[in-house]
């Protein structure tokens, strides 16, 4: 199978060097080739698994439970200012 590695890498927001892309292309083809085994299985009328168990999602009262921990949660950020995350300019 031919996979456009650069296109997939762009969708994944990973910049690959040309040599990385060249190395990955045959590996991904071989992995997807193996995965094509799935087409041998007759799945007519079979429902896809949505959850490993047949359970209802738990409900909880609709009340605020999380305290304000902005400073602690922003501590690991590469760059913040006045409680905001700072990123390169998006709009001119």
């Amino acid at each position, binding site marked *: 199978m031919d996979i456009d590695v650069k296109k997939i890498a762009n969708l994944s927001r990973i910049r690959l060097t040309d040599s990385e892309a060249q190395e990955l292309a045959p590996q991904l083809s071989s992995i997807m080739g193996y995965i094509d085994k*799935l087409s041998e299985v007759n799945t007519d009328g079979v429902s896809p*698994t949505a959850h*490993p168990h047949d359970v209802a999602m738990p409900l909880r009262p609709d009340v605020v439970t999380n305290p304000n921990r902005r400073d602690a949660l922003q501590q690991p950020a590469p760059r913040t200012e006045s409680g905001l995350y700072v990123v390169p300019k998006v709009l001119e």
Partner: protein
Amino acid sequence: MPFRSLSDIQNQLEAGQTTAVEVAQLYLDRIAAHNDDLNAFVFIDPEHVLAQAEASDAYRKEHDARPLEGLPIAVKDIFCTQHGPTRCCSNILEGFEAPYDAHVITRLKEAGAVLVGKTNMDEFAMGSSNETSAFGGCKNPWNTDCIPGGSSGGSAVAVAAGLTPAALGTDTGGSIRQPAALTGLVGLKPTYGRISRRGIIAFASSLDQAGPMTRTVKDAALLTSIMSGHDAGDATSVADAPNFDWLAACEAKDMKGLKIGKPKEYFIDGMDEEVRAQVEAALQKCAELGAEIVDISLPHTEYAVAAYYVIAPSEASTNLSRYDAVRFGHRCDNPEDLEDMYARSRDEGFGAEVKRRILTGTFALSSGYYDAYYLKAQKVRTLISQDFKEAFEQVDVIATPTSPIPAFKTGEKTDDPLTMYLSDIFTIAVNLAGLPGLSQPCGFAKDLPVGLQWIAPAWQEDKILAAASAYESATDWHTKSPVKFGGEA
């Protein structure tokens, strides 16, 4: 005496024969002596370990001991801990310190455990040999030329080499059971939903489950009983999970009346013949203990790896989109714009295997391929679950080899990702079906440990704990430890 079970240490602490500080110091000394060679731990803070032990000794003087009072437990670098770094052994989390403890870590602390440090693992738990770690691989103490398995390789090495009596791992496709098998330990992956995933760095959310890696079945039961229970902070944590007395389940001494399924798809051409012989001998032992061995079939087994390598990378590609260099993690120098910041930070931060899986998952979910891959894989997953449901109408538990091969040499499988993926063929189906699975030592092949895997219906860990305890009480494989590190083979 580093090769002790948690129960042994507990008894000695309760009898006043030792203190939590003495126990912690013994393991810290072992870590200082052997970790440079083995690379099991990626973070250790001896002062913090001793402070926890001192606090435990003080608590014991004033109160009744808690269930894990003073017991040293190491945790995989995938668990968020407020003390020290949490890296998931990835460069993208360089410098990250978690702002909160994982739910499981809170449970251990409340039970009086002494957290020893963070253990090595495959980057983001993606690997079967621990070789994808940003900190480099770690060594199997039974043969230091060999890998210990993965992805919870560091936890396995730490327990097997007597650097800690127990450790936590996580298991998405076998990452607790396979390294436990390859290093001669007990490893339990509980039923999906039994243990909260909150604060455990996500790989594949419909498959991930935390569990213990220990020297004995009872120790695994003890830790799981503390780790499990509903947590409103994880929507997939099951609120009214069937429960039982975990330690009482380990009192079994025989297997009278137990029906053990032996699936033909797990005894295949190409598996190591010594591994096959050891597992066959273990089943023979089970028969002597009163079990009835029933030949069964799980016909969709051969499609489990293919389904897994669609579902797990798809979920991973989504989960790992959070590493965007905005809220945490590595950011590249001088980004030109937002796109450049995302793409270059992620290229610099992720290792080769993680990139492979993100790309595989992105491809499987991309427009035009979703039905053929993701949806198809989820349908095959339903068939794999049905195989187990039908089998459990005939038998109580299923027994298989944990891994088709013993530990392999470092570097042997790194060139071909697909060969590496196939080393998990006997563990993956259990995750797809959300079932509990346990590996326990059952002999040696080429002087390397062999694991016996037990599988039970959902929520029936008590059945595999009973079977594994009976086998353990009738054999002495669990008492072996690597001579090179002061053990007894």
